[in-house]
């Protein structure tokens, strides 16, 4: 890696080596190429008394490698420009060159905090293409492990949100929950984070004794533990007064920005894919869709904590109603679905995960498009952060809970 000194030469924006060779320009707020769009030209023109501040890609609270260029007036954020692509791994292209079973391992690290949901929607889309019916026990195991993963994801959210508001203790507490759950899932799936557990037509392995004993042990004290975690923040006046009224968004704007999941439900709209477009065994289960009307950061936080309790209810029902049946449908090793298109959406911890797959009759998907809620939610940070202080911008972003692996794919 050699660097070149001197003034920047205007390179083509399509040149992939721009960011690699020009290390000096990597952290400069102004890009080394001329503006490509009207919006870019408007943003990179400074008004009276304004200045640029570069944030990221290496920043402790950007939740990964997001880079944000802030335009500041004093300490107030006038405008901002997120720069994406620092974690672009080309997953969709890799999926087109992998056969249907291998796709599951490629999509795993997209949202690495809730990997099971990344597997779930492609697997469902492929099952629609192949027209297979999943055994009921496999569906119950999917819901059971998925809801556990949702709790782990929301528990981590609690710690990160508090960390970005300046509190260190909650993340230590939330990682206790998360570690217990992922160890439990590791007993079931064999991996702590990137589970690679769902298969087309079922799941990889049946419930085992190690998993069940860990789960029973944890369930007996989960409610109490989560309640005690919540006392750290819910009754903390500094936290509540800081998070209330921060980054308010109303339902119409949220819908026009394509928000889904907890971020949308925090504005009062009760949209949940599990109820609106039922899939798997969710119609048979009894659970509530919590909503809040405020639409601010505190509402988004409290809503996720409510969802943890609902997930515990779902897990309890799954354990009591678990049927006895095979865990895999009978399928050939080499899958060649008929030519066609399939779309499958599920409700993940961050919102609506969806996969749109096109088959051309071969053993590889012709095209796979992954709809990721993190990417969709990130487009509204410009709306939410405007006219906030610098210190609040990261708190607003943390309340949206984006994961950069899913944003950049």
């Amino acid at each position, binding site marked *: *890696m050699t*660097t*070149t*000194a001197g003034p920047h030469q205007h390179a083509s924006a399509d040149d*992939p080596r721009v*960011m*690699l*060779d*020009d*290390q*000096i320009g*990597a*952290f*400069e*707020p*102004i890009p080394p190429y001329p503006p490509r769009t009207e919006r870019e030209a408007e943003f990179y023109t*400074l008004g009276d*008394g304004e*200045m*640029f501040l570069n944030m990221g*890609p*290496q*920043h*402790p609270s950007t939740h*990964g*490698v997001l880079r944000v260029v802030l335009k500041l007036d004093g300490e107030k954020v006038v405008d901002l420009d997120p720069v994406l*692509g*620092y*974690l*672009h*791994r*080309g*997953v969709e*292209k*890799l999926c087109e*060159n992998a056969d249907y079973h291998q796709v599951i*391992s*490629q999509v795993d*690290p997209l949202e*690495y*905090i809730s990997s099971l949901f990344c597997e779930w929607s492609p697997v469902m889309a492929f099952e629609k293409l192949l027209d297979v019916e999943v055994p009921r026990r496999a569906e119950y195991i999917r819901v059971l492990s998925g809801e556990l993963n949702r709790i782990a994801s929301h528990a*981590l959210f609690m710690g990160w949100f508090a960390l970005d508001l300046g509190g260190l203790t909650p*993340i*230590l*507490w939330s*990682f*206790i929950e*998360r*570690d217990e759950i992922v160890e439990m899932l590791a007993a079931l799936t064999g991996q*702590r*984070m*990137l589970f690679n557990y769902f298969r087309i037509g079922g799941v990889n392995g049946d419930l085992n004794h190690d998993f069940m004993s860990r789960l029973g042990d944890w369930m007996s004290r989960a409610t109490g533990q989560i309640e005690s975690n919540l006392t750290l923040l819910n009754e903390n006046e500094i936290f509540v007064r800081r998070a209330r009224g921060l980054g308010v968004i109303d339902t119409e704007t949220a819908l026009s920005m394509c928000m889904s999941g907890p971020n949308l439900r925090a504005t009062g709209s009760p949209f949940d894919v599990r109820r609106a477009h039922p899939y798997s065994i969710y119609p048979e289960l009894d659970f509530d869709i919590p909503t809040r009307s405020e639409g601010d950061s505190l509402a988004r936080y409290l809503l996720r904590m409510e969802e943890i309790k609902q997930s515990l209810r779902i897990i309890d029902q799954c354990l009591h109603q678990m049927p006895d049946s095979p865990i895999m449908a009978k399928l050939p090793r080499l899958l060649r679905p008929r030519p066609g298109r399939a779309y499958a959406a599920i409700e993940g911890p961050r919102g609506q995960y969806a996969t749109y797959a096109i088959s051309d009759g071969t053993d590889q998907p012709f095209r796979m498009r992954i709809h990721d809620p993190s990417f969709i939610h990130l487009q509204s940070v410009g709306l939410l952060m405007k006219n906030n202080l610098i210190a609040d911008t990261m708190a607003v972003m943390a309340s949206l809970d984006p994961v*950069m*692996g899913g944003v950049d794919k």
Partner: protein
Amino acid sequence: MSDNDGAIERSTGAGSGEGSAGTALIVPGESALTAPIVVRNDLWTSAEGAAYDSGRESGVAHLAELAASDVSRRDDARWSGMLEVIPARADVVLDLLRANSLWPLLSGLACCAIEMMSAATSKNDMDRWGMFPFRASPRQADVLIVAGTLTTKMAGPLVRLWEQMPEPKWCVAMGDCTCSGGRYKRSYSTIEGIDRVMPVDVYIPGCPPRPEGLIYGMMKLQQLVKDRRGQWADRAIGPTVPPGV
């Protein structure tokens, strides 16, 4: 004060030569390393002219100047310059101190970062072995744990982070993606192993490795730091495949 509206401007090498004239630092020619970063104050002027050093520009001594000069030319992080008088035995003691207070840089790239945080929090507490305080600034860190897939777009910033860290410094490649490319080896946008862009001391395979795996790797690094006894071979950048393989 120039009329240039850029907030950060890189001055030429000639200017830095004048700034450090008369000191022990000799800056050989113009290069990207030696040119200091001069942050010009175009936005704000003090109300009182005599305040802040009477408005004079202070000489900027960048760490890269020191690294490029003869004073700390050797990459072995031993006492150097005027401190050469201290006996070489001091290096052994210093290495013992360094090994037991490794300060990693808080820079997570992807999935492995979550396991890195898990290794630092309650259940597996890395602090017990003296490797905890994750620093947010590369100036304060001496271990770079590259946790996650390195893409071509992130390679430049990461190498810059590595260059900003002061010697002595070590690099730990955490996860399959950073060791060899892992499951994204065939992708068009990733770098197949970070040893193509920076030297690596410890490789930790796994996708991602368990927190215990990271702690084991860091203990191996501690052993490495202790065992070198003041000696440090040049570390190569690039695929280190032995000839004939």
